[in-house]
């Protein structure tokens, strides 16, 4: 049986704690009495994944078996999660490809000719051919690319269908080909509890018009947290939209869960609890850190993004969206939930080299904000890990560096918007529309590999709950002028950061540190 997650209390015996620091790591000694949250150990994977996939397709939850839904002459759309999942990318074969192969085998047996596959990339950048091939596997790629295997285009007016409005007046507009299909099969990877459910189709295949109603400051402020779908206005909105989608088209939803074995081989030390590090782990850390510190940033980044995780599949469920997602969440929680008593005054986190929006790319300053104040801050259920008015200290270099191919609108957001204001509401009111409807960004999104013009705004909104909740945000090791532009403070060392934070939290704060990887979800009591 895997060990559950737990909360360590730092004492004089505690070795230094490992933190990510962008494309590097650091070992930090924490003050005695600090708490460190560790994830549960990886759950055992399914021994026969193919049999489990077949079983899920043959015995779906609340729906007929997949073979019974497939008929000759029908139009079938298979959509799947894009490159933002999982993190890091998994070792091949990717579970999406394996599931899709099984679905296609049934479709071929049933004589379905009209099959189209879509990357549900929403307003994210298009995936390259190589990236898609890696996700779906060579057989699928060769059979369908490029005509019937495509990226979803949220700005292709001719291929968007408006399905109606929810009772809250939210527009539901998704990929027209999918909407007019006889069946949508959606294949997801549910890495964290935010993923999956109705969000998959409604957002993944949606347009700006249908993403805007829930990707805004108001919704984010009412999503406490968006990792807890029961208390997330974002998810409530997606559920309302999902009902509209389901009225228009049948959705056969397939969700998969992975364990949290994100690092293996020579980087396995990242996963292990520090006092269990063998001499080999210490040597691996030392070698990796030395090599990292000496390598140019580009080389370092390339090395990190090549890492493929040795995840194991812990479950596959198929059928009705709600029933499937409930089972999925239960598995995600089993892998990730850690009980934590009470809130801290100071929350410490090391931000990794990767987030959902910079796979094979650069984690620019805006993404570093989203990663820390968006994702890490929101890894809770119940109450935030840090009290209202507390401080959050993060490790990240926050370089003024952008990927001009992937993140062109981010550059302008940083230069033109953040130089005027950092207030999410003002930004939303004054600048969002201009960026969202900019023809150049639209063109780059549709024909190049750029995130949609509005995407940096969403990153900022993603952090809005944390910004209003926290009294102080400090980046340790962050570039001073860049961090200042973001509206935060930077410190050279953790000791300096704690000293700075004492202005808001007092001289003897309760400190909680987030030890990742692997990821976990705090159940704060």
């Amino acid at each position, binding site marked *: 049986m895997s060990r559950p997650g737990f909360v*360590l209390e730092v004492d004089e*015996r505690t070795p230094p704690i490992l933190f990510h620091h962008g494309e590097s790591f650091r070992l930090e000694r924490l003050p005695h009495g600090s708490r460190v949250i560790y994830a549960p150990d990886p759950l055992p994977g399914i021994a026969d994944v193919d049999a489990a996939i077949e079983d899920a397709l043959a015995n779906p939850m609340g729906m007929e078996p997949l073979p019974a839904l497939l008929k000759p002459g029908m139009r079938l759309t298979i959509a799947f999660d894009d490159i933002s999942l999982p993190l890091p990318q998994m070792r091949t074969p990717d579970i999406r490809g394996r599931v899709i192969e099984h679905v296609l085998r049934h479709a071929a047996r049933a004589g379905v000719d009209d099959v189209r596959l879509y990357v549900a990339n929403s307003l994210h950048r298009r995936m390259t051919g190589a990236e898609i091939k890696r996700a779906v596997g060579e057989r699928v790629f060769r059979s369908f690319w490029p005509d019937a295997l495509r990226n979803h285009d949220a700005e292709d007016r001719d291929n968007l269908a408006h399905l109606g409005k929810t009772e809250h007046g939210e527009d539901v507009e998704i990929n027209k080909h999918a909407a007019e299909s006889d069946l949508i099969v959606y294949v997801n990877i549910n890495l964290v509890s935010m993923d999956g459910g109705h969000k998959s189709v409604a957002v993944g295949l949606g347009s700006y018009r249908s993403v805007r109603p829930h990707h805004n400051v108001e919704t984010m402020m009412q999503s406490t947290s968006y990792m807890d779908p029961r208390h997330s206005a974002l998810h409530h909105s997606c559920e309302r939209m999902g009902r509209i989608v389901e009225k228009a088209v049948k959705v056969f939803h397939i969700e998969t869960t992975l364990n949290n074995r994100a690092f293996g081989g020579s980087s396995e030390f990242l996963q292990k609890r520090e006092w269990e590090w063998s001499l080999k782990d210490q040597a691996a850390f030392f070698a990796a850190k*030395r090599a990292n510190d000496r390598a140019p940033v580009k080389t370092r980044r390339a090395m990190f993004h090549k890492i493929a995780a040795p995840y194991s599949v812990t479950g596959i469920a198929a059928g009705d969206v709600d029933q499937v997602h409930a089972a999925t969440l239960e598995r995600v929680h089993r892998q990730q939930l850690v009980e934590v008593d009470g809130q801290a005054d100071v929350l410490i986190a090391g931000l990794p080299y990767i987030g959902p929006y910079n796979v094979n790319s650069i984690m620019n300053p805006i993404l570093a904000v989203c990663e820390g104040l968006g994702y890490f801050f929101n890894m809770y259920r119940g109450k935030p890990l840090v009290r209202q008015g507390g401080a959050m200290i993060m490790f990240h270099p926050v370089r003024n560096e952008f990927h001009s191919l992937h993140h062109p609108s981010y550059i302008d957001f940083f230069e033109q918007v953040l130089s005027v204001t950092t207030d999410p509401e003002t930004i939303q009111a004054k600048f969002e529309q201009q960026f969202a409807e900019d023809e150049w960004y639209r063109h780059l999104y549709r024909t190049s590999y750029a995130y949609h013009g509005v995407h940096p705004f969403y990153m900022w909104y993603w952090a809005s709950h944390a910004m209003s909740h926290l009294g102080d945000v400090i980046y340790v090791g962050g570039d001073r002028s860049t961090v200042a532009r973001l509206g935060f403070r930077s410190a050279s060392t953790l000791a300096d950061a704690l000293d700075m934070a004492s202005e808001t939290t007092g001289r003897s704060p309760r400190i909680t540190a987030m030890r990742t990887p692997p990821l976990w979800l705090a159940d704060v009591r």
Partner: protein
Amino acid sequence: MGSLVKDLRVLQRGFRWGRRPLAPRNVALPDLAPRDFPTAWARTPAARAARAAIQSGVMKPLIGSQTRPSVYGAHLLKTLTPPVIFYANHSSHLDAPTLLLSLPPWWRERTAVGAAADYFFDVWWRAAATALVINAFPVERAGSRRSTRAAKQMIEGGWNVLVFPEGTRSKDGWLGEFRMGAARLCIENRVPAVPIALRGTYQSMPRGRGWPAPGRKPVRVRFGEPVSPAEGELAPDFATRMRGALELLLEEDRTTWYEAMKRDARGERASAGGPQAARWRRIWEAGEPVADPLARRAWPR
């Protein structure tokens, strides 16, 4: 180069290189139980010869260069027949070597030292060095059944055993409570316990110091009369008697033999556990320089 050294230092300090790995206190780690470390080799003729050479050629001059030891009451040993258990108060890493060197050579060659398994026998090099230099064998402090097994074997083999019944070095220099292991050992093996009072090692090298304080501070070792368990006496009772005998011996060293006896008879014996006062005051008082009560002053007050 600087960062390389810095990184290595972080690892060396953080992960206790060369020392037993420790887990944080709120982590249960059953796999870090003390390992059995064989010490029988340290009592072979070759090891005994090497030890005698090290003790007289290195240890004695070294300790003599850092402290000023004086030994009293060694004549009492003449009335004893081995094996016996030597026991003493414990407040410094200097205690065991000082005591061993205070024993007459004949006794020293036949005495083994019980050392904390979790501290001295955690890594091979320290275990080997401790076993060779002071003829140590591992004693588990956890109070398990295994804790006195090795000591029992030593006594059965005819070795005298030196133990510190407090189980650890005193944090404030005063005598702590006794654990039951030493008393049980005496009862089970029907051997007498010889108290040894040690004064001055705390002043010279208390907890936290890695080397004796400069100035060759005086260290006093005083042997007492043996105490033997009575027929049917239980370990807690005998442990109390053992502690009482040591308290009296410490008092004797602070004053005189006769003075100590008179005070004891009047019930006025000062507690070797120290004054009931704030921690700093206990440490302060324990740190007072050790003086010979009979030493003559060049300039009397």
